[in-house]
């Protein structure tokens, strides 16, 4: 099927039907009649009136979010349904999509009262577990190690969690994983199997459609990966307020949550904390040993 015949482009990601004016090859193609989310090119406002929160390159108020990346694009998200993009002349579509698929979608999800944890999700049996952590914790590298052992991927870096009928579920994101060159070397991966995300950086993106699982699954465990400057490994099950705070701190872009949706976020974190075991795994900073970490997690999953 040629690209022309599938316009407008239709995808499913984060549990949503997404229609786009342009190709988003990172997402999984889909078919539907009515989109829940529309992605389009268009002019965007220079600023928001009376923003509730702002930073050097973003502003937000209830149901409106604005972010701009110099020389790449400006993004305007409305009502949890529309993403408008004003592309800079010199940027590539690959760059425009790189920031849209994670960062901008997280703002859109939050406008819908949907929240994500900063972590990757791996399928195991009929359930899933999350590997959360701050940037650089080794989430994607460890996830790739699991995939090498025939586990399946639900998401890299951003994991949408929700509660349905008393069970915590995780939604598949999209079949794509990002790895730095040093992680690829550790995993003995060939750079030709992926593509550079940006010309000036040795960071690669890999399309993983064959290793992807595209249905929501109940969450069995959450692991928080934390590097430290000591040679030993530590594992501890989190309880009480520490568990709640750790989950809150690992919310994907917590700063983008508006005052209106904050109570829903609080409620969700409470429910996750009440139901799902959360373990913190502290690892030596460098070098990462993904085989050891995988053993630690598999032991805790038993």
């Amino acid at each position: 099927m040629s690209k022309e015949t599938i316009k407008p482009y239709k995808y499913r990601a984060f549990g949503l039907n997404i229609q786009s004016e342009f190709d988003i090859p990172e997402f999984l193609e889909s078919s539907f009649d009515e989109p829940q989310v529309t992605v389009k090119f268009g002019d965007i406002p220079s600023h928001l009136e009376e923003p509730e929160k702002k930073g050097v390159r973003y502003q937000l108020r209830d149901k409106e979010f604005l972010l701009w990346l110099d020389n790449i694009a400006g993004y305007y998200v409305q009502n949890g349904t529309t993403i408008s993009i004003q592309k800079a002349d010199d940027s590539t579509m690959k760059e425009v999509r790189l920031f849209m698929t994670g960062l901008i979608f997280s703002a859109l999800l939050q406008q819908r009262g949907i929240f994500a944890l900063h972590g990757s999700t791996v399928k195991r049996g009929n359930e899933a577990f999350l590997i959360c952590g701050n940037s650089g914790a080794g989430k994607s590298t460890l996830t790739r190690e699991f995939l090498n052992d025939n586990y399946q991927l639900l998401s890299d870096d951003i994991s949408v969690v929700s509660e349905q009928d008393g069970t915590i579920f995780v939604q598949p994101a999209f079949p794509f994983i990002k790895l730095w060159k040093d992680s690829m070397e550790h995993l003995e991966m060939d750079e030709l199997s992926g593509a550079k995300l940006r010309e000036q950086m040795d960071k690669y993106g890999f399309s993983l459609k064959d290793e992807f699982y595209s249905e929501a699954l109940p969450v069995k465990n959450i692991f928080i990966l934390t590097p430290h400057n000591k040679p030993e490994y530590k594992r501890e099950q989190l309880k009480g307020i520490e568990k709640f705070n750790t989950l809150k701190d690992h919310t994907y872009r917590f700063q983008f949550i508006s005052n209106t949706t904050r109570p829903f976020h609080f409620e969700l974190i409470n429910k996750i904390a009440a139901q799902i075991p959360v373990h913190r795994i502290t690892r030596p900073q460098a070098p990462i040993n993904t085989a050891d970490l995988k053993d630690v997690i598999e032991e805790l999953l038993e």
Partner: protein
Amino acid sequence: MEKNDKKIVWLASYPKSGNTWFRVFLTNLLRENSQPAHINELKETGIASARNLFDEITGLPSEDLTHEEMDALRPEVYQWIGAEAEDLVFKKVHDAYTYLPDGRPLFPPEATHSVIYFIRDPLDVAVSFAHHSAKKPEKMIDTLNNSNFSFCGKRHRFYNQLRQKLGTWSQHVKSWVDQGNIPVHIMRYEDMKKDTFQTFQSAIRFLGLNKSNEEIKKAIELSDLSVLQEQEQQKGFREKSIKAESFFRKGSIGEGKQLFSEQQINQIIDNHVDVLRRFGYLSS
């Protein structure tokens, strides 16, 4: 009255020059506790190149930005901090004082109160830096002489700090001391060791902090090297490199002169003679 955004005090130095010691002292002085502040809780004097600070203030995911893109935004991040602050804000810095390709200084004068610049005999810096990096001391002489030296500057891996360009040891010193945009107070490590009270007191007076001599003396006691060493032994220090045995070592003066050969000492003198003379590290 016009709002004054000039709130940031840069605690700037080449590594291993007394910066952390002063940060602990300042933390103790500001907190006014009877017990010493813990070395793992020095949040009042966090590093300016922290990645999470950048991400929080810009809203951008720095992990997908280039070094150059992050550099271009850093002045705005600091202006933001200056504008938001009620009181003075202290930021540790290992970057040299540099200018962006468009001419803006990385550390904007509009947000800056002043800089305290820490300087130490480069021969002792080399020894201490070698322990910190788990490298041979003679290797560190090359580092101090390397005009392209930077922290976190490679493009194939993630760092939890933004790139910091340091240059050679004397380029670093001159960049801060001679920049001419913001007020500078210089602290020699050797003076900090020899006459701690007088040196620290003059820094506090320079900053205009309303602290009594007794409060300064108390904060110096709570920041004694033995306290820091004991804290590190018990719980570790999160700013230590994983390769180093410990962060707080001896902090002694003149170790480099004893350790290095005449040839190695000359490699430092030849490259840094002007700055060495200017700051009293060469008698002739």
